[in-house]
């Protein structure tokens, strides 16, 4: 097994953030990498949103993010240093989840949030019927020689939200040590002739492929599907292994400094230390080009972490934001803590020169980080679904430095959760279409294309989000 020392040496990767470093000129190229930061519940909208002047709430508008930190909303203040490299999107809703009657609201949110597609039950398990945006982007920007995506869970999230295909839920890795071993394991253990090792591994996988093929033909439809999938994944892995061992080995030679070795957790307890380790792992993977897409799925923060109190965040606060001032304050701080997580990630990436950039660009310059969650608010609402995008400099089509607002005026079938409101904001699929187009995909639809509106009307979910691009 890998020695702890070698793990720590590798995990020690880190450098001071270089936010103040002079920027390179914008270049109109596609981002190279993507990270989804996914969180539980939702913010207290009043503590998250920003306003400037007396812009009407029933119209679409944008404004430049303020240059004074105190003018940032309380929840988003930790992201102030990235103000000219971020977009705050205040104008989306999980409309497809609202019209989907196939499950409970947490289940619906988790199924729809990254896929924009309806949920279905498979063997009683609530699952989405389409791939998630991270996987769609991975299929566009990852080469077969790379790990298709990293899916990490921190603090035991309730369920994975990443889908490689319809009803095809991807597992999360929740133990940093296991994630590390998965990323670097074989090279470290062998430490020798990588080309011979990978040639042997490829031979084994190819022989296994044949076995899966033969066995699949003998089984019924479920077995056939599962073994064929496994066979294809073996094939992908055999391609991925070409040169991967060498890249892994090169990666392990980085001079990595700056992290206390004792801070690396051996298991998934210790929320902040686990998060820090996963951030380092993602940065390492990007720096070595082992992978280009990652999801950091953050489980619920405890009352102790957010407020220093032993309280049940879910039941005592998240559910009660609209009716309890303490709950509103708590969820504002809750989201602020996640904003700190996003800032930590962005800082890490911005402290590393992108080896595949123009020589001056950092990893952050060529990475799009998108922070979204399962719900619009803690009271199970799907409207005002908050989204923050950070990253860039190497690509410019997103209107960085902007706050983008859309009103909740789309009449939704069945009136939805917020009956007093005239409707919901823009379908969140439009954010995904915008992202996909940024990554060079020629598509105008991600997830559902149309949804039933009120009184027989149709809601068009296609195309990019106005004001974002």
């Amino acid at each position: 097994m890998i020695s702890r020392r070698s793990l720590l040496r590798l995990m020690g990767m880190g450098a001071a953030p270089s936010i103040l470093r002079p920027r390179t000129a914008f270049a109109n190229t596609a981002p190279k990498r993507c990270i989804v930061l996914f969180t539980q519940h939702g913010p207290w909208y009043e503590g998250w949103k920003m306003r400037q002047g007396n812009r009407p709430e029933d119209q679409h508008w944008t404004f430049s993010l303020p240059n004074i930190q105190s003018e940032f909303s309380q929840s988003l203040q930790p992201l102030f240093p990235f103000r000219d490299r971020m977009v705050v999107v205040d104008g989306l809703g999980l409309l497809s989840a609202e019209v989907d009657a196939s499950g409970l609201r947490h289940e619906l949110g988790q199924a729809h949030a990254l896929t924009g597609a309806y949920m279905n039950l498979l063997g009683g398990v609530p699952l989405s019927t389409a791939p998630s945006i991270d996987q769609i982007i991975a299929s566009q920007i990852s080469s077969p020689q790379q790990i298709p995506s990293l899916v990490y869970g921190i603090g035991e999230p309730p369920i994975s939200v990443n889908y490689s295909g319809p009803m095809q839920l991807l597992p999360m890795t929740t133990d940093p040590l296991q994630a590390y071993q998965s990323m670097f394991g074989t090279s470290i253990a062998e430490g020798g002739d990588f080309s011979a090792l990978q040639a042997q591994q490829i031979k084994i996988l190819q022989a296994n492929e044949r076995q899966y093929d033969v066995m699949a033909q003998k089984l019924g439809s479920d077995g056939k599907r599962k073994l064929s999938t496994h066979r294809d994944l073996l094939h992908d892995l055999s391609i991925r292994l070409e040169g991967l061992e060498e890249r892994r080995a090169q990666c392990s030679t980085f001079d990595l400094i700056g992290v206390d070795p004792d801070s690396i957790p051996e298991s998934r307890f210790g929320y902040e230390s686990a998060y820090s380790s996963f951030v380092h792992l993602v940065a390492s993977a990007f720096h070595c080009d082992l992978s280009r897409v990652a999801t950091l799925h953050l489980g619920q923060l405890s009352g102790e972490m957010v407020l220093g109190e032993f309280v049940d965040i879910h039941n005592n606060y998240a559910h009660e934001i609209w009716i309890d001032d303490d709950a509103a304050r708590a969820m504002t701080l809750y989201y602020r803590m996640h904003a700190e997580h996003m800032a930590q990630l962005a800082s890490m990436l911005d402290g590393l020169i992108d080896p595949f950039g123009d020589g001056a660009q950092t990893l952050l310059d060529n990475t799009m980080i998108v922070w979204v969650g399962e719900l619009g608010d803690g009271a199970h609402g799907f409207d005002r679904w908050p989204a923050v995008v950070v990253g860039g400099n190497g690509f410019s089509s997103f209107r960085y430095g902007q706050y983008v607002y859309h009103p909740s005026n789309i009449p939704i079938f069945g009136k939805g959760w917020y009956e007093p409101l005239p409707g919901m904001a823009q379908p969140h699929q439009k954010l995904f279409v915008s992202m996909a187009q940024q990554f060079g995909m020629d598509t105008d639809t991600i997830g559902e294309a149309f949804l039933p509106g009120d009184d027989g009307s149709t809601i068009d979910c296609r195309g990019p989000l106005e004001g974002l691009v």
Partner: protein
Amino acid sequence: MIFVCHVREYAHNYCLVVKIQVSLIVFFSSWLYMTLLFLLSCSQPEQTIPQVADEAPLKRLTTEQYNNTLRDIFSDVELPPFQFSEVRITGFYDNNTSINTASSITVENYQQAAFFITTAMDEQHYFPQCGDDDCLEGFLLSHAELLWRRTVLLEEKNEIELVIRGWREDLDRSLVMRMGMQYLLQSPQFLYFPEVGIPDQEENGMIPLQDEEIANRLSYLLWNTVPDETLREQARKGELHTREQISQQAWRMLGDQKSNEGILQFFVQWLQLEQIGSATIDFDQIWLMDEDNQELISAFLHQQLQPEMRQEIEVFLLYHLFEQEGTLAELLTSPQTFVTPNLAALYDMDIPDDAQSFVWKTKKSALSSTLELDELFFQSSYFPITLSSQERSGLLTRVGLLHKKTKPSHPSPVQRGVFVMEQFLCLAPNPPPEDVPPLEEIEGEEPLTNRDRYAQHTTNPACYECHKMMDGIGFSFENYDPLGRYRTTENGVPIDATGELMGADVSGELENAIHLSEKLSQSRTVHDCVTQHWFEYSMGRKDWREEDYELLKYLKAGFWESGGNIPELIVNVVSSPSYRFIAAEED
């Protein structure tokens, strides 16, 4: 004690190091008991059983099964427990076949594990020094049979030989041996449970499973690991496909210590025991020990007390299932239990001076993720005691189950009620509405008791409709504080533990949790629900067809008529047509 015959030491898993001498008479009693149950269970005529074949979605080894299989096949090789990234969903058993399709990380996990295993084998001199290729092929073919848990077919043998010979053209023999082992460790026959049955014998859309396929089903359900030689021999002889043959083997297996782990896999998930480790307590409000340093108290709770709470339930279950009558009623009403000195303090009981202890071990990986433990196991010494029947009655009043459904400063009647609804009545509560009113505390009128705190649920019409059922059950547990300790007053006010049970055939007013447990123990609804849970776990699926409900109906009736005998329910399911036949697919 008959108990120790069954749950005696089991090397790598849940194990009990027995300090008590066990007499042969006791062994005989246990065997006789299982035999009698077997004879009784076979008295139901086959024709009354609905002939329903299993839809048989493809199962894959769970991580636990993967590790156990390696442990039992390669007992001479020291291997670490592997940890794989798997999809887990709260409320679904880990063997659910709807979520076991491999992903990129799964395949990579297996590839790397296979590499590490052969590296360890190499270092520990497991591989023989073969002087010729016949030795090499013989070694790998014999391991194919072990790892695949069945006879290797001729075509499979040919394929293995072809692969080995191909590699031998340019690689040395020892390297090919390692590669061959990795090849077997990543094969579908090892990682999955491919079942083809005997298509030639299809009748009415039902294909009988092969005897070796049945052996695997039985073994991985009841033992969570590979079939033993007896089971494999029965299968090889073709004597493992009738209801009687399977029943006989199932009873034998339940009488074996290995069933501790297999059966606990179900109970741990059904009772959500993993949640015990995630409950937190506000020690400013809840006293646990005379210690000012909260971190020390917290460490004691998470690192010692919670694992012991969990283990108490494991031992309680195994004792009642295998050494007592094994009825559901017993699980819900028995005052017998096993405690450490820490748990005895929570129960406010003294351990008798002459009580003999035994050590119980649980895998660290099976306990809470917050457990900081260098060893692979958590272990403590347990003493048998009898709790006060005025204060405790069976499972639901054990400190572990009471503690896991708590708020940091007060118990949660809602969560306690929902737990009983979902797991014992098979009722799913509605999700909370968007306009959940807060449990308001008016200044100067702070609630004196926990019940006062939640009273608005039943006085406010917006809450009442849903909460009447949850809280009605949950209030009956008010005699137990967040750590599961019995209490008769709260802030000087006498506890009111009355409630109401709804949604069951024994619905009615409740005096307290003892009364609730008694009612549930006599309830057909509860017996049906437990049958449903076991069926779901046994079949590895939850999407039941119309015909599955027919079989389920029969199994529910059988469980009820048996007096709620759980081992009998287990055997009844594994010997049912759905465990012996797979459904033919229409072209």
